[in-house]
């Protein structure tokens, strides 16, 4: 494999890993606050649809992004209402959101655009365009560093850079701010937060709002940056893979970057090598495409060491006594 191929694979790793990273960080905020969220998938899908639809109608990716975030946050609030205010089962609420998004996006899409559930393909102006970083072209001739800068680091859409910037930002928020301290505490022992005079429900609503926003970015990225419009079921299980990555990363932001990029790499490899020829033995394309899911199963089966989830995760908070 030559250097150029490697760069191409890494480049698509970044592009394919970005939605996973955003969704993973989204899950991180809700789960560290003690609310399990398997509805990442549904929220991403809803965001992708809203972004695709609005970008198609208005021709503006920014309007699309805003719509995507709004759609995702709206579903997030449904989850919050069910699991925080009404103390429902968080898994069931999450599943319901996934089903709701899966059906609603196609129904609305068909009704609005009559394209079998997809949204119209976006013109160039309707999508987020790659950004060429300053100096990319001039540096291209520098050996090794030049191509890495010009092809791998430069040339992504704004959302990719945003996603990467969110990793240290999330770490900083969790570790260094009052909000982060309270968020971590509420996912571990909500009773401690409550007796300290802080509203558990308010903290969890805030966390789920952040989750909604980040899922919205992830979904919008799929529809109006990575692709040119919404296609039904376009999230293709990325929400679940993001959850697996979250466990792999043990609910920490920086490892989340590594975990999601690993999944991105697997997807990039399986896209590139349709039939991998290993000296006579040909690995069929289906096996390659199954790789991320196989890894998910391996991770969830606990082969990565003990992952201890936030202690209060999954449990609605009921005041004792």
């Amino acid at each position, binding site marked *: 494999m030559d250097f150029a191929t490697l760069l191409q694979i890494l480049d698509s790793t970044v592009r394919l890993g970005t939605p996973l990273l955003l969704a993973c960080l989204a899950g991180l905020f809700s789960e560290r606050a003690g609310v399990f969220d398997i509805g990442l998938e549904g929220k991403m899908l809803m965001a992708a649809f809203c972004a695709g639809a609005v970008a198609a109608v208005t021709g503006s990716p920014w309007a699309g992004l805003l719509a995507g975030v709004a759609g995702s946050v709206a579903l997030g609030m449904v989850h919050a209402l069910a699991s925080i205010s009404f103390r429902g089962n968080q898994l069931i609420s999450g599943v319901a959101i996934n089903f709701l998004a899966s059906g609603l996006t196609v129904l609305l899409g068909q009704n609005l655009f009559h394209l079998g559930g997809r949204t119209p393909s976006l013109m160039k102006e309707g999508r987020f365009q790659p950004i060429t970083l300053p100096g990319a072209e001039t540096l291209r001739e520098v050996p090794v560093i030049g191509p890495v800068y010009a092809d791998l680091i430069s040339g992504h859409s704004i959302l990719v850079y945003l996603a990467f910037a969110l990793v240290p930002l999330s770490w900083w928020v969790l570790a260094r701010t*009052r909000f*982060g*301290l309270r968020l971590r505490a509420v996912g*571990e022992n909500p009773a*401690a937060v409550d007796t*300290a*005079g802080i509203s558990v429900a308010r903290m969890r609503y805030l966390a789920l709002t952040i989750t909604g926003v980040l899922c919205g970015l992830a979904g919008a990225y799929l529809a109006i940056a990575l692709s040119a419009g919404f296609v039904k079921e376009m999230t293709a299980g990325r929400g679940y893979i993001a959850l697996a990555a979250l466990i792999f990363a043990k609910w920490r932001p920086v490892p989340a970057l590594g975990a999601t990029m690993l999944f991105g790499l697997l997807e990039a490899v399986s896209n590139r090598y349709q039939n991998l020829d290993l000296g006579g033995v040909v690995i069929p394309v289906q096996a390659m495409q199954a790789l991320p899911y196989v890894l998910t199963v391996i991770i969830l089966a606990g082969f990565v060491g003990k992952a201890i989830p936030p*202690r209060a995760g999954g449990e609605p908070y009921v005041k004792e*006594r």
Partner: protein
Amino acid sequence: MQTAPAAPATTRGAATAPPAIELRSISKAFGPVQANRDISLRVAPGTIHGIIGENGAGKSTLMSILYGFYRADAGEILIDGRPVAIPDSQAAIRAGIGMVFQHFKLVQNLSVLENVILGAEDGPLLRRSLARARAELAQLARDYELEVDPDAIVEDLSVGHQQRVEILKALYRDARILILDEPTGVLTPAEADHLFRILANLRQQGRTVILITHKLREIMEITDTVSVMRRGEMTATLRTAETGPEDLAERMVGRKVLLQVAKAPAQPGPEVLRVEGLRVTDDRGVERLRGIDLSLRAGEILGIAGVAGNGQSELLQVLGGYQRAEGRVLLNGAPIDLTGRRSDGRSRRARGIAHVPEDRQSRGLIMDFAAWENIAFGYHDAPEYRRNAILMDNAAMQTACARAMADFDVRPPLPMLPARAFSGGNQQKIVVAREIERNPDLLLVGQPTRGVDIGAIEFIHRRIVALRDAGKAVLLVSVELDEILGLADRIAVMFDGRIMGERLPGQTDERELGLMMAGMAEGAA
């Protein structure tokens, strides 16, 4: 910043100072249950006030009202002579009230500093708060013997240190009134002594302490004044110096109580239980039992003392049949299966081992099932409970239950009531009745009186002694040293999965046992 201007530290409860806390006619009902009825109380600043009462007497409800968990239906709260409204915990904190709960409200995976500042941060960023808390903790450590490593993660701390973090949390919020709910239940005697020194220091600095406990000894040792609660009412407020344990117990229960079980010397018979080299390793690979050797004879009560979590639970679980182990256990000379197919509760019962588990609500009862169903559990395939090969004889179980309830004074004596509807003491009586009625060779008893009121304690103790006098062997595990000292014929102390040594109750005292419970004084005579 010491407040309480009217109460200089030296003149404790001076006549001029308004009470630090005054409750006027507080009432609170939960549905038809009157948890607090017309309670009035004045606590002078710079004193330690004890509140004593049985479970369900309303102590916790009253303190929850003071800390803003509940709102009183009627009545008034005055702090330092000024009426205050306490609708939530935040208001209580603002009024200068801090509370140390029985079950700590700490975030296990955060550091001590983070726990201390949680909810009392100085601004949106933590840096400044952490620095201030670090300095203040150092000062508090010097003032009150409250030393804790500020950077330690809470889950790595001992229970005694975790409790100090709770106290530090309250003091960091400038609490002038500190409420402690059953603070010594989880402590070794040495840790409890240290806690009392801290409380005495707090008193000396003019802070007011309210100590909720059911241990009469603690009341006598540390408090200045004491209130007794019974059935939601405050029946008496006394100067501690002018009362005594018997008087307090009588006021709590409403009748004369025997604090010490009257029992004749043991008449040990042949060996019933022999344990050799028992080892248990838990799921995380931690060795919980590290080679236990025990011998227990008929007509004898062997008490296992120790701080909770030193392997006593595992020992009971192995003997009771729901924990696999290595080693050898002989019952009446014949080995017991510790690992195979016959290592379960049912096989143990068939061999004559009865078990009153430590956690009666999860292991001893099914809370939503009726008392008569609970009284048959474990013995439900006994011939007298069966009509034929398939059908059970519910009527027989109900009759048996009614009989046991009368025999064990379970109140109310209604077999149809779910276990949940009984008080802690009566739940425990149901379990004890079930296990003792079968006349076992060996009775395993874990924490027989945890969460049980004094009247029921007396009753349960009498039945355990009666079983011993009938020539049966009893293995008693308890974290209450008083209980061990009062009941056991021999005492073995467990620490970190080992037996630290054996003592006879007449030839030892709390101090020696306490040292052994803390892992010291091994081999000391």
